[in-house]
Each structure stands twice: as structure tokens, then as C-alpha cells.
């Protein structure tokens, strides 16, 4: 199934062989929330992303899968401006990440521009990356106060709501070092949500956890996916979770999207041999 | 079967429940090569060996088995005088390890006495512990030259014989860092044999090796067991190897010998529930 017919495939999803551009959701170009245009990223001589194209419309939940080293993390890090693309353009909510218009000319983005577009994104890391020297509450309130200019009280109030949501209201004065991995990850999710991002980037958020702690975190994310409007880009090896929450699964290999589609289709009857191989190995 | 009838059990082996003293081989007290008399060893409040009694006669091959932490390594380390017992006496070839007679009185052993009795023992470690800054040849010749007073030439000649035996004659000038784990362990065995010990202590000598390297080392040890007169005390999890070479298998648990006997009997039809459990877990 050629990609240019993808939009017609289902109501919410595009799918199929990704020779052209992978598109998740429907709408006009103006509605696109995330857009990768011929993005290439190299580390030295290693081309990790090779002229990658894809789009995501708002409120969609996308899962990225693919073998180790295929560039999934790199995509999230590019979106979070932790990396810069070597070629191509990334656009979030209509604004290019790495360029800005000044006096009618496109110039490399300054710190201010980058911070402005970064406001759209929140990220949760595999290793939690909570700030060990701040209490749980402070971890969550610090950025809203410093970046969004909220008052401490307001930020704390909202943080407590979020902590309530992640089931850790009573641990707000604890330091992260005292929490289990699962609890830390839930705090990290709350911390990312406190900034009210449009897109939540999740990079293997359960793979550093002991098996018995994984379920709690995944349940929380399912809840968030169900009850909020937030767009999610999610790298995970938890296929049942991916099936539950995703509108679309994208399979990466060798720097390209080699296939994408609705999870039922992708997990049930993938078209590509490579996808089938990969799934049979991880399922 | 009470232990006091153990000597009659088979020609070469004692066996059975070890309420009394485990004895490997037959002979008079004067012939005993290794003798533990009510040996107790504690680490802090943790009693690792609890009034342990056993004897081994010359040329026997004994395998020690038991769950992790049961004190197997501790026994070898006590024999090698790397540790001192808290109570009881260990005697090797008629000489107590930790005491010596001076002017008709028993006094704590001095460095000289300890070094003298240590000459009876050779030890091979799990982690090889070759000297990384000496060539393979020098690793083997150092102790014979320094301790036995051999000439360098004589020691080298003998070392080359041993290296031939372990199949590494052509690597004598190499440094240990360049050898595979299996080769290193074979050198370590040659190094121990170069001191012509009466007893060879082997502590899980293959468990640090990649699986494909294990066989080479075990074959070498089988050869040594078959072709030399050396007494062996061997901690291993390689049950088929233990079955091949052992005259006796001793099962340890909670600081005691709970059962011992010929490998056929021990592996085929152990008497103790604990032994059966342990063996079913490892076999």
C-alpha cells in the first residue's frame, strides 16, 4: 500500500510501506503538530537518520519501535533540541526548531527561539533524571516557577494535584533517592506534565525498572493517554502497552520508517518481512 | 549409616551421614594428609564453619559441593593459610598449620613455619590471579626459584614441560593479558603444579570462563587427576566432572558436612533430603 494513499486508510491512522512520508492523523498542513522534513542525522560517519519524513497531528499517540540503534532515541532527542539535525527541518506546531525568521531572513535559531518552541515538549527519560538535591515537590515546581513564572504557591498546588494523580501525594517532601524506581518515574512524569506540554516524549520509560514496578507506570500512562488531550511520542518495548494506547506504530530500521500503521495491523499482520522478524523476536 | 563405620563402606571411600567425622580414604592416623579437628570459623557473628571435622588420605580426589555461602571457599582458604580458624586445629601431613612446637611448647605459628607447611599446598583460583606484569614463563618459574631455590634454568625447563602439558608451550613469552580466560587458567594450573604441592586446591576454576573454554580446563584437570599422585580438593559446580574424577563428594550446608560419599552414590541416591534438593537444583 503506497504511502500517498495512507490518509485514507482509516479514520485516524495512516499506515503501510513508508516509501514516502509517514503521516499520523488527518488534517491540513496547518494543523500538523510535528513535522520532520528530510531530516538527516549523522554521528561521525554513522548516518543514524537518513532523510526522514513524517508528520503527527495533534492528540495522536505514536509508538516508535525498531531494533536497538535504529535511531528511536535520536528522534526524541532531536525534537527536544538536545541534538541538532545535520540536514532537513523539524517543525513543531508550525515553528521550525532550528531556524527562526529575523528581518524576513531564516537564521539559525537563537537560545530564545529554541526555548520558545521547547515549551511545547515534555520528556520523560529512561533513567528518570530527577534532580537528586531537590524534594519531590521542588522537582515538579522548579520549572513552572522559573520558566513559566508561576508563583511558588500556585506551582505547589498544581504539583500536589499531579502527585495525587500519580499516586504519590504523601511523598512530596521526600528526596528522590528515597523512592523506588517506579515511584521516581511517576514523579518524572508528573514533572514533565507540570509544564503543560503539547507533546510528551517517552523514551523507554519502563526499561530501567524492576519488573514488578513496570505495571504501575504503564497504568499511569494509559490513564494519561485516555484522559488528556496530550500528544504522545513513545519508544517502548512493551508491546501490549503500545497496542493499548497507540493510534499508530512506526517501525524504524536503518534510519528510515520502514512501515507504520494501526497497532492491530502492525502487530497482527505486518507487511514488511523486517517488521515481522523484529516483532517475532520481541513479542 | 553412622560415620564411624564409614571406613568400611568401600575400598577407597567413606560415605553417609556426617554426624561424626568425614573421612576420605583409608589408613592410619599417621598417613592422614589433611585433617580438620573441630574447626570453627566465624566472620563477625556469622559462623561459617561450625566445629568441622574431616580427614583426607593421600592421593584422594575430593569434591566439595553445597549452596552458595556454605563455606566451601572458606575451607580452601583456611588450608592455604589465607585465613586463620577461630577454633580447632588443621593438620597437613602431620603438621598443624597454626601452631608450632618450640622448645617443647605449642606456640602460634610464625611466618617461617607457615611458609614451610604452605609448601604442601597449591591453589588455583576462580579469577586465575596470574601476575599480569610477568611473562607466562616467569609466572611459573618465580616461586620455584625464590621459594624452592631452583636455578632459573632448571625452573624454566620444568616450566616448559608443564606448559607443554597444558598445551601452551609456544606462549611462554606472552603476557597473561594476551591470553584467553581458559589459557590463563591453564597457566595458573601449571604455576601451582610447578611447586610440586602434595595437595591441589581448586576453587571453582571454571566458573569465570566463557562456556566454550570450560572443557579444555576440565580435560586438563582430568588428565592430572589420572596421571599424577596429587591429592585434590576441588570446589566445582561441574557435576559430570566431579563424578569423573572424585573419590568422594562432600556436601556442605550451614557450616557442616551433611553428607559425603562416592559420587555414584551421592549423585545417584543421596540419603539427605537437603542434598537431593541441592542436586536437583544444579544438575
Amino acid at each position, binding site marked *: 500500500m503506497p504511502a500517498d494513499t495512507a490518509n485514507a486508510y482509516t479514520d485516524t491512522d495512516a499506515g503501510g510501506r513508508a516509501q514516502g512520508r509517514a503521516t499520523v492523523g488527518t488534517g491540513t498542513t496547518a494543523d500538523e503538530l510535528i513535522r520532520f522534513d528530510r531530516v538527516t542525522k549523522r554521528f561521525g560517519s554513522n548516518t543514524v537518520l537518513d532523510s526522514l519524513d513524517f508528520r503527527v497531528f495533534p492528540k495522536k499517540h505514536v509508538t516508535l519501535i525498531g531494533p536497538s540503534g535504529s535511531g528511536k532515541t535520536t528522534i526524541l532527542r532531536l525534537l527536544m533540541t538536545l541534538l541538532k539535525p545535520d540536514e532537513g527541518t523539524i517543525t513543531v506546531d508550525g515553528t521550525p526548531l532550528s531556524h527562526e525568521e529575523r528581518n524576513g531572513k531564516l537564521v539559525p535559531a537563537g537560545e530564545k527561539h529554541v526555548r520558545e518552541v521547547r515549551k511545547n515538549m515534555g520528556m520523560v527519560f529512561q533513567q528518570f533524571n530527577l534532580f537528586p538535591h531537590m524534594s519531590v515537590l521542588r522537582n515538579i515546581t522548579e520549572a513552572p516557577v522559573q520558566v513559566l513564572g508561576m508563583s511558588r504557591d500556585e506551582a505547589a498546588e498544581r504539583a500536589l494535584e499531579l502527585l495525587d494523580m500519580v499516586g504519590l501525594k504523601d511523598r512530596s517532601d521526600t528526596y528522590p533517592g528515597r523512592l523506588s524506581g517506579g515511584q521516581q518515574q511517576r514523579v518524572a512524569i508528573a514533572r514533565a506534565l507540570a509544564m503543560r506540554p503539547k507533546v510528551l516524549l517517552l523514551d523507554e520509560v519502563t526499561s530501567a525498572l524492576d519488573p514488578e514496578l513496570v505495571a504501575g507506570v504503564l497504568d499511569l500512562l494509559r490513564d494519561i493517554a485516555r484522559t488528556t488531550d496530550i500528544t504522545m511520542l513513545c519508544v517502548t518495548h512493551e508491546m501490549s502497552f503500545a497496542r493499548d494506547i497507540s493510534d499508530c506504530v512506526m517501525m524504524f530500521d536503518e534510519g528510515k520508517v520502514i512501515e507504520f500503521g494501526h497497532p492491530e495491523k502492525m502487530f497482527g499482520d505486518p507487511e514488511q518481512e523486517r517488521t515481522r522478524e523484529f516483532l517475532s523476536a520481541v513479542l | 549409616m553412622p560415620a564411624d563405620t564409614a571406613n568400611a563402606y568401600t575400598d577407597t571411600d567413606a560415605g553417609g551421614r556426617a554426624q561424626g567425622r568425614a573421612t576420605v580414604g583409608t589408613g592410619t592416623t599417621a598417613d592422614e594428609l589433611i585433617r580438620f579437628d573441630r574447626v570453627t570459623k566465624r566472620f563477625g557473628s556469622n559462623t561459617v564453619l561450625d566445629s568441622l571435622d574431616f580427614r583426607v588420605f593421600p592421593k584422594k580426589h575430593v569434591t566439595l559441593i553445597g549452596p552458595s555461602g556454605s563455606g566451601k571457599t572458606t575451607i580452601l582458604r583456611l588450608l*592455604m*593459610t*589465607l585465613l586463620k580458624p577461630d577454633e580447632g586445629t588443621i593438620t597437613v601431613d602431620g603438621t598443624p598449620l597454626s601452631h608450632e612446637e618450640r622448645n617443647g611448647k605449642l606456640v602460634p605459628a610464625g*611466618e617461617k613455619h607457615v*611458609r614451610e607447611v*604452605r*609448601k604442601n*599446598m*597449591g*591453589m588455583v*583460583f576462580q*579469577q586465575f*590471579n*596470574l*601476575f*599480569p*606484569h610477568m611473562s607466562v614463563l616467569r609466572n611459573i618459574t*618465580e*616461586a620455584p626459584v*625464590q*621459594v624452592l631455590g631452583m636455578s632459573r634454568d632448571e625452573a624454566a625447563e620444568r616450566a616448559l614441560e608443564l606448559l607443554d602439558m597444558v598445551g601452551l608451550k609456544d606462549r611462554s613469552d606472552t603476557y597473561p593479558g594476551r591470553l584467553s580466560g581458559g589459557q590463563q587458567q591453564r597457566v595458573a594450573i601449571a*604455576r*601451582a603444579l610447578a*611447586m610440586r604441592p602434595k595437595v591441589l*586446591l581448586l576453587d571453582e576454576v571454571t566458573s569465570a570462563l566463557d562456556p566454550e573454554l570450560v572443557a579444555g580446563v576440565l580435560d586438563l584437570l582430568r588428565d592430572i587427576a589420572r596421571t599424577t599422585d596429587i591429592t585434590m580438593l576441588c570446589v566445582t559446580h561441574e557435576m559430570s566432572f566431579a563424578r569423573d574424577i572424585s573419590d568422594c563428594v562432600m556436601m556442605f550446608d550451614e557450616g557442616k558436612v551433611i553428607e559425603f560419599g562416592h559420587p555414584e552414590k551421592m549423585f545417584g541416591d543421596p540419603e539427605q533430603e537437603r542434598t537431593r534438593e541441592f542436586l536437583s537444583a544444579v544438575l
Partner: protein
Amino acid sequence: MNWDWSAVDAFLPRLADGLLVTAQALALSALLAFGLGLVWAVAQRSGPALVRGPVAVFTEFIRNTPLLVQLFFLYYVLPEWGLTLSAMVTGVVGLGLHYSTYTAEVYRAGIEGVPRGQWEAATALSLSRGRTWGVVILPQAIRRVAPALGNYVIAMLKDTPMLFVVGVMEMLGEARQFSSETFLTVEAVTVVGIAFILLSCPASFLMRTLERRLAR
């Protein structure tokens, strides 16, 4: 600033004399520091308890008091107690002793870095204590700490100017003498300063390269 190149010309031969003295003092005191440091380290690791305590206190004391005052002490006080050392010997002993307390720590770190298994293997081979130290442990320990020791040699180089206070005519001493005779302080002190940078920068660069090499 009135810079006088002829003063530099006049000073250079004296600088060469001073450099020779600096080199001698450095070489001898480095040897002393390496040797004594080893003694402290070994004494603290395996000496009798009666030795360990005093050695610990002594090295802490030396390490925590100024080299300059120690030099004065050696030079002026020891003779009152009947031990007279020449200026050069005072300098070498002072510098060497002071830095031996640093090299002792380096050796200690190196010795502690030798895996326990090496001690055990040496024991299992019946090697004597002296042999175990000399043939098994120290060669491995010293290999790992060589760059750190090298760095201390550079630190010692930079402390050699202090020796002039007891009359050792090293480079700064020559500069002082020269400027008190000719009053050409600017040139002499500047030349010595540059000489030190020229000596120690490449040396520490070398050490860092060596370190990186060994770390690999």
C-alpha cells in the same frame, strides 16, 4: 617598562648555572621523595602497629606544614641539635621529605588498587613477604601510579625556588643575586619565570599524555 635585552644577555650564563643546580636538587629530591614515600606507604600498610601510628602522625605533620618553614627548621634548628647539613643537602632533604608524604599517598592508592587475588596468589605460591612486595605488588602498583608521581616531580620543580632561602643558588637565587648586584630585577625575575613555564608546561603536557595512554 624599560626592558633591557643586554641585561638578559648578561643574566643568561647565571641562569644556566642556576638551571644546573635546580636540576641537581630536583633529581636528588625526587629520588628521595620516591624512596621515602615508598617506605611510608609500605610501613603503613604492613608495618607493626607501633610503627604505623607514628608514621601516620609524622607524615600528616609534614604534609600540613609549609615547606618553607621546614627548610628553615632543617637549616637552623638541626645544627643546634648537632646535625649540620649543607645548603644543598638541606634543600634536597627538605623538598624530598616534604613530597615523600605526597608520594606515599600515591603509592597507597596504587597498592590498594592491586587486586586482593594477587596477594592471595603470592601467598599460595609461598612467596616470602619481601618477595611478595618486591616482585608482585609494587611493580604493579608503581606502574599505575607513574603519571601521578610524574606530576609531583613537576610540582617539586615549581617549589625548588624556595631553596634559595637557605642559600642554594638555583635559578631564583641566581636572579636575586644578579639583581642585588645590578638592580636589573625586572629582566632577571621575568626570565626565570618564563624559564619555569617553559620547563613545566611541556612536562605536564607529557604527563597527561602518558596518563591517557595508560588509562586506555
